[in-house]
């Protein structure tokens, strides 16, 4: 088995931000996606992969993100396995 990091069970380490914590209107870049095979395959098919930029339309669970012209809803547990880097901070309204 592979060593797994940041599965939904363990709280994400403070230096690792995930999509579940992203703020509204922020622009983020995916750095790493981990988790169970089914989740990985689903996210991979939709293009939620390391390197892509997402705009957070709606934070929380399910989070709604804009990727190119598409809008994708991602449930809370799935969002926790998408690690991100913030490119442009959003409105904290």
């Amino acid at each position: 088995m592979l060593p797994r990091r940041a599965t939904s069970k363990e709280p994400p380490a403070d230096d690792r931000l995930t999509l579940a914590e992203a703020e509204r209107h922020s622009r983020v870049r995916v750095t790493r996606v981990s988790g169970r095979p089914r989740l990985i395959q689903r996210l991979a098919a939709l293009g939620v992969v390391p390197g892509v930029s997402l705009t957070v339309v709606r934070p929380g669970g399910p989070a709604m993100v804009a990727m190119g012209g598409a809008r994708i809803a991602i449930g809370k547990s799935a969002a926790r396995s998408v690690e991100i880097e913030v490119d442009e901070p959003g409105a904290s309204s």
Partner: protein
Amino acid sequence: MSTPVVAVAGCPNSGKTSLFNQLTGARQKVGNWPGQTVEKYTGKFTVAGSQFEAVDLPGTYGLVAISEEEAIAATFLAEEKPDVVISVVDASNLTGSLHLVAQIAEAGFRQVVALNLIDVAERRGIEIDDSVLSDRLGVEVVRTVARRGQGIDELKAAVVRALDRKPMQLVVDYGAVVERHLGGLVERIIDRPEVAAAQSPRWTALQLLAGDRGLRRRLGSMQGGSEVVDAADAFRDDISKEASSECEMELAEHRFNWIAGLVDEMTGAVVQQTTWSDRVDRVLTNHYFGIPIFLVVMWVTLRVTADVSAPFLDWIDATVSGPVSRWFVGLLDLVGLSGGWVESMVVDGVLAGVGGVLVFVPVLFSLYLCLAILEDSGYMARAAAVMDRAMRAVGIPGKAFLPMMVGFGCTVPAIYATRTLDSSRDRLLTGLITPFMSCGARLPVYVLLAAIFFADAKGTIVFGMYVLGILVAVLVGLLLSRTALREEEPTPFVMVMPEFRLPNVRTVWMLVWQRTMAFVKGAGTTILLASMAVWLLLAIPVGGGGTFTDTDVEESAFGVVAKGFAPVLDPAGFGDWEQSGALLTGFVAKEVVVSTMAQLYAVAGEQGAQGAPGFVADVEEIGSSFVAATVDTLKAIPGVFGLDFFDLEDEEDTALQAVVRDSFEESSGGRGSLAAIAFMVFVLLYTPCMAAVGAFRHEFGTKWMWVSVIGQFLIAWIGAVIVFQGGKFLGLG
């Protein structure tokens, strides 16, 4: 030369189905995918004298299938190897759509890309240089607006040209780590001739590294296949370790990186804007308002279904049992068969059965119309997102709510609708709880009994039954997800939200038509056969001095069976043989419970007593009552938004009401209303009908079918007994 096959592939919401409809026009054929219940649409089109066969593949985002519906597209491409693939691309969402296009190109198919929804892209100010795409992939790109039929002729011409080209295989660079192992796996594949000949070795290797389950299964039956699968697993582990990322992610990352470069070249930098759709989304999926909005939408849907369809329901019922039956009697008279068992079979068996099927068409039609409008507008996807958290809490995935909604209309299409769920565990769980959603066929039973025993609170009682059904579904879901169907791997909620738009008339119509016809064909046949079987049982004399078709009901084969079953239901307060008999026929099809009651209490004969009007008068009557039904429907629409839930009319004849009342009072020892509620609870919870059982077996196998049938019967019996005995204990009734 045989007719070349053209597959139409694309993501959901790319306009793939519109394009397929434009391509083939009305010349479509509906079949089933091999071993599947998902409908397969095929059609023919002709270009410059040569004919092509087109196949509409289920929408998918990629060729590594996750849900069973997606697996159909991947399997068809791999096994049937269509001559040309038309890939439908959503021009307003290039990145999402090109993933599938790239995979089809990597698999080495002759491909034509339909750059669809080009109007939407232009409206958003996205300018697309499609020559980049055609150069890189070696394909022709045709701009289309499928809904308006734009670009279809050019597309057909491009298909003809593609057929003459040699298939080209796209090679994407997956980076040093992956490429090294990929090369190793390709070598292993080339060593096994059968595997190597099946499809391009590089493509086979890529799909194996991506963990495609369908391909693993297919390789299992090939010589040397399982060795290749084992080798692929070892390579997958190596790649994950070296890249310190899951193998699937590593592949997807490089592919999307390649796509991102392509999209950049095609469109330049596009400034991402929030659209009006996003603003609507913030309200509809709002943390606080999302669920209340959803409940209001569902409430309106159910009201429209009940109110709008009711007048047409009455009209169909009156037409079949009135003029149509008279015409058949007249026809039989002409050929000298009147009055005998043939007439009895045609009128009481066949026509009653056909009527039983047709009566449901308006109900289902209006429910499916509402659902199709909600689906095509984009709201359904939001509803799934909104409901996912609440439903997950009881172990049911958010995507399950669409089948459950369909279940309010008819359980049969609801069971088929579970196919869109991701895992087989989710599908089975949803299939097991969907039958508790009160389908349209159960409504007449509640209406009849509520009108008799609770004239002042009919609406509340009927509404209560719907709520009870939902509660039982939730409880059973909770129980199953804690026991037999415990989740090892909860399916995460990840779903694309299509853009809000005005529903397309044609798309909505196709959805409504397909689902309604699925009911008429699937359930219809069963209901018809059941109606014939009941007629036959009623016609066979067992005791007494009756002859065939002329025997007392109590002494018919049916009466004997019903009497044998009756004691089981005694603790629930409805152990009369007429009551158990009605429930027995309800096992075959719930809509016949009321009519069987009428038949068994021998009060149904009154209708036929009126004089026989002429043919012209009949036709006039049918026409004018149809107009009346339409007017009634229009009148009902404002009432939909009123506050009276299920304002039900008294329409059953009073003779039946009186007999039913006496019978329930008698069987329950004077607690008729309590027994009536117990009876309604039983009708709500026991096996919906034979057709639903058939659909269930088809989808989940014989073992689970028995679990479902026996489980439902036990739950219904326990529920009814608790209501009756509990009520008795509390001194109610």
